[in-house]
């Protein structure tokens, strides 16, 4: 609690520091959200191996996990593998 008080006082006397906090804060948020996406959504990650043994098999045949997929039109993919 005292940290925020000190920081707020310093910002009032040096307002040019505010953009610094904005950009550092933005960077921290982006890193944290990307790590959270990796931990929770990545099909290679399995937190519970008894109930979720092969999470990559749960992807649809044209479902995209990558953020940017260049030269790959996922909507045109057909299902290839035979069922059993």
């Amino acid at each position: 609690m005292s940290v925020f008080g000190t920081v707020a006082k310093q910002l009032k006397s040096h307002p040019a520091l505010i953009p610094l906090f904005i950009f550092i804060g933005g960077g921290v948020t982006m890193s944290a959200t990307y790590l959270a996406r990796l931990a929770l959504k990545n099909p290679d990650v399995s937190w519970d191996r008894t109930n979720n043994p092969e999470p990559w098999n749960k992807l649809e045949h044209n479902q995209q996990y990558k953020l940017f997929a260049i030269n790959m039109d996922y909507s045109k993919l057909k299902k290839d593998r035979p069922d059993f």
Partner: protein
Amino acid sequence: MSETIDEKLKNYRTAPFDARFPNTNQTRNCYQNYLDYHRCNKALAAKDQDQTPCQWYMRVYKSLCPMSWVAKWDDQMEDGSFPGKI
């Protein structure tokens, strides 16, 4: 639009893109197809159906996997010491 499995096997050229494994590292793709081949054989044999559809998985893993891995896993399957879940 879907071809029969015989047509697919006849027209097979190489392993198609698999959305489960979009990155450069295709190790898991190879292993998963090897597992799927044996699981498919086991499942269709239990249901007394023709095991030809399983050949798709064999073609894919033969395209993807290094021969030494396939040989090692086949030896392990014969011994009964294959570590994967079939």
